[in-house]
């Protein structure tokens, strides 16, 4: 008996050499699904390379919200050999492979970009299936499992398009193969082709000919694939929907939050993956104010003409110091960077902390140490963010776990920086930054801008009662004046300073200033609401509690949905505020749990150690991953299940991902 049709629950993967347009094919596929009312979640994997190395997109489409990827693939779409060799084994037995039949004789050893270790692994696989090492052999092994093979003669179709559109050279339209692969995918999935057309129009908006050429090609591939596999188990159908959806990346979400929070100045030095955010901001320097965004005004009043300045600096030292200089003038200022760049910012962070400057640093974590794996994923910088810099310098550290948290934390970072007058490090990890997904537009109506205690010249300062930037007389937070203001001249120095901001080495003043700075952190711990500090999911009396942070939230919640449906009593404590650490709150959730599981994408279980440092509570189990690939909900589900059955070792290392 054939398995029942699976509607709107699909895992799709497209791959190809970098620079060949795989990005836009995934974009078109995702946008077509979104236009049809589906939720999508896409994961992008690529090498640190401009052209030629393998890159791929794994995308899930579903009726409901999707927050993570899974290991298996239902439809693998490709127009070249390497993707097929790399990913064919991940295709489910009831899935399909869309490929170019003219490449059948390509040998595994013909592909120089496949690493030796993987090549050996694939050779073993092929030998165990009793076949040779060509692409046809790989396909034969797949077919034997039941995988549907969908040969698409890409070159023939391209030639037809070239004829129809009178293109003299085929090389001018090679990129159309991407849309042929997408069209063929939708063909076997039976998805409304009008959605693909709409998506093409959206992506190539200004280029009518490009749209019609790609649409014509995609339609041919769609029809051909459909005739080859008329009865495919997986189907995509339109879902009628009234509410709007946002389709964005984590980098964009973070940028939106920062802009909404009033950021007007950002510095950056090019680095993967942080640059994405700054480039997005650079493209959108002119801002609208007060809900006039959709109504073009003939003449914009001066105070409505908002803008932000994005500055590409000579290095990350300049990035952090320039942003600090800007923050001293009152502009909400930030810099965005990744590991190696953050390493260069240490001294500047210390300066901002001792001078109580509201500076925001968005730290996009990637796999370290050193250059590490620049385009791959890790949550390896928590400890570093907490302690970065010499001496003891208070800072606030926030870590986002999903797109809405990226927006909210981007916004909140500036409030916290100004209210407590210290640097705020906002941690985002690459898995979140580079993923793209549909979400319901978050309701942000609760967000208010808080500029903290600000001094101005009207506060009655005089020669006998001068403004003191670091006044010790009124609690830990002293009124912050801005460069250029009348009546509030102050001095800053990286040396220890007196109330005016002049250098001091007086032991009494030193104590007073150290205590002032750290008292602000206590105040922040008291004032920051619990729902910013952490979120708890699941039954309150759970005997097993997971502790995690950052992008693993998506895979965890997707895995937990399955575990909860099976009746598992598991709780999940998602920590967002890392400094000041919410010790009492975390302890309250962990005190009664018999089993405590750390889930983190790093080697050392960094959050687990921070929890232990602040609460004395140790984890009983660790589920960790540090191979540079994000956690899939498949492997997480399996690992959690194994811990639940009492079968797991203390430390489980997840290893999946291509």
């Amino acid at each position: 008996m054939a398995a029942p049709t699976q509607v709107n629950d699909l895992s799709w993967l497209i791959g190809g050499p970098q620079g060949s347009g795989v990005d836009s094919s995934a974009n078109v596929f995702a946008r077509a699904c979104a236009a049809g009312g589906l939720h999508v979640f896409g994961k992008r994997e690529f090498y640190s390379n401009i052209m030629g190395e393998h890159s791929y997109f794994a995308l899930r489409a579903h009726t409901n919200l999707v927050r993570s990827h899974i290991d298996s693939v239902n439809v693998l779409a490709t127009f070249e050999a390497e993707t097929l060799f790399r990913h064919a084994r991940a295709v489910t037995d009831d899935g399909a492979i869309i490929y170019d039949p003219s490449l059948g004789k390509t040998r595994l050893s013909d592909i120089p970009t496949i690493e030796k270790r993987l090549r050996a692994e694939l050779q073993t696989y092929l030998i165990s299936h009793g076949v040779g090492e060509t692409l046809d052999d790989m396909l034969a092994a797949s077919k034997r499992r039941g995988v549907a093979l969908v040969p698409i003669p890409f070159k023939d179709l391209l030639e037809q398009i070239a004829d129809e559109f009178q293109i003299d050279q085929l090389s001018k339209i090679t990129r159309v193969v991407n849309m042929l692969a997408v069209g063929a995918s939708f063909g076997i999935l039976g998805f409304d082709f009008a959605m693909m057309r709409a998506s093409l129009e959206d992506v190539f908006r200004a280029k009518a000919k490009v749209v019609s050429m790609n649409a014509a090609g995609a339609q041919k591939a769609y029809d051909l694939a459909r005739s080859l596999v008329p009865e495919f188990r997986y189907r995509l159908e339109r879902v009628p929907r009234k509410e709007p959806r946002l389709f964005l990346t984590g980098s964009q979400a973070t940028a939106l939050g920062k802009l909404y929070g009033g950021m007007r100045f950002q510095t950056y030095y090019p680095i993967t993956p942080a640059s994405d955010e700054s480039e997005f901001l650079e493209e959108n320097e002119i801002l609208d104010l007060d809900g006039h965004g959709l109504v073009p005004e003939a003449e914009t009043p001066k105070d409505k003409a908002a803008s932000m300045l994005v500055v590409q600096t000579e290095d990350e030292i300049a990035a952090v110091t320039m942003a600090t200089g800007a923050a001293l003038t009152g502009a909400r200022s930030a810099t965005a960077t990744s590991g190696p760049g953050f390493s260069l910012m240490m001294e500047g962070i210390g300066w901002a902390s001792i001078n109580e400057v509201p500076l925001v640093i968005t730290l996009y974590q990637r796999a370290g140490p050193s250059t590490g794996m620049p385009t791959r994923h890790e949550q390896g910088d928590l400890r570093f963010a907490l302690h970065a810099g010499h001496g003891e310098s208070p800072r606030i550290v926030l870590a986002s776990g999903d797109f809405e948290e990226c927006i909210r934390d981007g916004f909140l970072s500036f409030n916290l920086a100004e209210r407590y007058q210290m640097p705020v490090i906002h941690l985002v990890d690459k898995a979140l930054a580079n993923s793209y997904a549909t979400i319901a537009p978050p309701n942000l109506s609760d967000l208010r801008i808080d500029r903290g205690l600000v001094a101005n010249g009207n506060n009655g300062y005089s020669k006998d009662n001068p403004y003191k930037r670091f006044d010790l007389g009124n609690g830990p937070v002293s009124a912050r004046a801005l460069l250029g203001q009348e009546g509030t001249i102050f001095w800053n120095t990286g040396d220890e300073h007196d109330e005016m901001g002049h250098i001091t080495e007086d032991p009494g003043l030193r104590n007073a200033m150290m205590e002032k700075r750290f008292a602000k952190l206590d105040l922040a711990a008291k004032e920051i609401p619990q729902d910013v500090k952490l979120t708890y999911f699941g039954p309150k009396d759970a005997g097993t509690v997971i502790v995690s942070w950052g992008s693993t939230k998506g895979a965890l919640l997707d895995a937990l949905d399955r575990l909860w449906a099976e009746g598992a009593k598991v709780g999940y404590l998602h920590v967002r505020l890392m400094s000041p650490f919410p010790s009492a709150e975390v302890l309250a959730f962990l005190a009664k749990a018999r089993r405590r599981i750390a889930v983190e994408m790093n080697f050392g279980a960094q959050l687990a150690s921070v929890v232990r440092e602040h609460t004395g509570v140790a984890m009983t189990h660790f589920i960790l991953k540090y191979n540079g690939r994000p956690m899939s909900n498949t492997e997480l589900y399996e690992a959690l299940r194994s811990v639940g059955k009492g079968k797991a070792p203390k430390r489980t290392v997840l290893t999946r991902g291509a």
Partner: protein
Amino acid sequence: MALEQVLKPSDFATEVHNDWCPGCGDFGILRTIQMALAELRMEPHRVTIVSGIGCSAKTIHYVKTYGVHTLHGRALPYATGVKLANPQLKVLCLSGDGDGLGIGGGHFVNAGRRNLDMLYVIHDNGVYGLTKGQAAPTLKLGVQTKSLAHPNINDAVNPIWLALAAGATWVGRGYSYEIKHLVSLLKQGIEHKGYAFLDVLQPCPTYNDINTKEWYGGEDRKDAESGRPLPRVYKLEDEGFDPVVHEPSEIEKKTTQALEKALEWGDRIPIGVFFKNEHVPTFEERILQRVSTYMDNPPALQSIAGPNGEPRTDLTRLVQRMTFKGE
């Protein structure tokens, strides 16, 4: 932004105890900065002075304007951030030669590429004073100042050449004992439209026992007839040197003559303006091409919140492209 009322240098003085060594060349620079600001009738709160680390960096504590004493080598990027976020401020930036040309050399080069409207002054004494006299980037090869174990193994960088190569549009050199001349140079640098670099020869009486006040003054080589010292330092303008690029076609010629002059050292050391070119758009002007309201409504002065903290930034247009509307 100049005031009507007459200002005195003492209007720019603080009560902070000055702990430079007696006879330090920095006193001359401090005094001339206060004189220049007074003569330009600058409102103190409209001026921000940014410094790096070292004896030179302490200057800001002695001047009554906004003062930002930053990190070793980083004065320029801090100053750049201040100026970019609020281009309505007057920004001066101070470094030592170790600070600005050694650890901060990368920023020195990149500031020239921007041509931001500010003045950068290097207190140039050839030694790292505050760390007890190690060799700094302007100390010549083979010179052994008194705390060096061996003669200097590195050669000197030429700040004038470097500034010209980097793209500074006003390049000058002063001497901290030529007070009137230095005040004039500071004023010209402050008023120059674009990035101005001023190298100030500044004897370190404690650690540089070679390039001393007496050496600059030529007291080791007296005129045979009059018995008067023959100063090494001379003024470019006294010899009819014209540093100004009057029209763009002169850039090559004027750069070349500035480079030639900057090679002079030893018996004759030129001070004055080496180069001035206002035909290069400032960084502010380049930003204006992209953001037409930048000068009137720069980042620092924008209103971002309503009376009750309502965020004023409207993301509608931005989010439009990311939105899939309902049916």
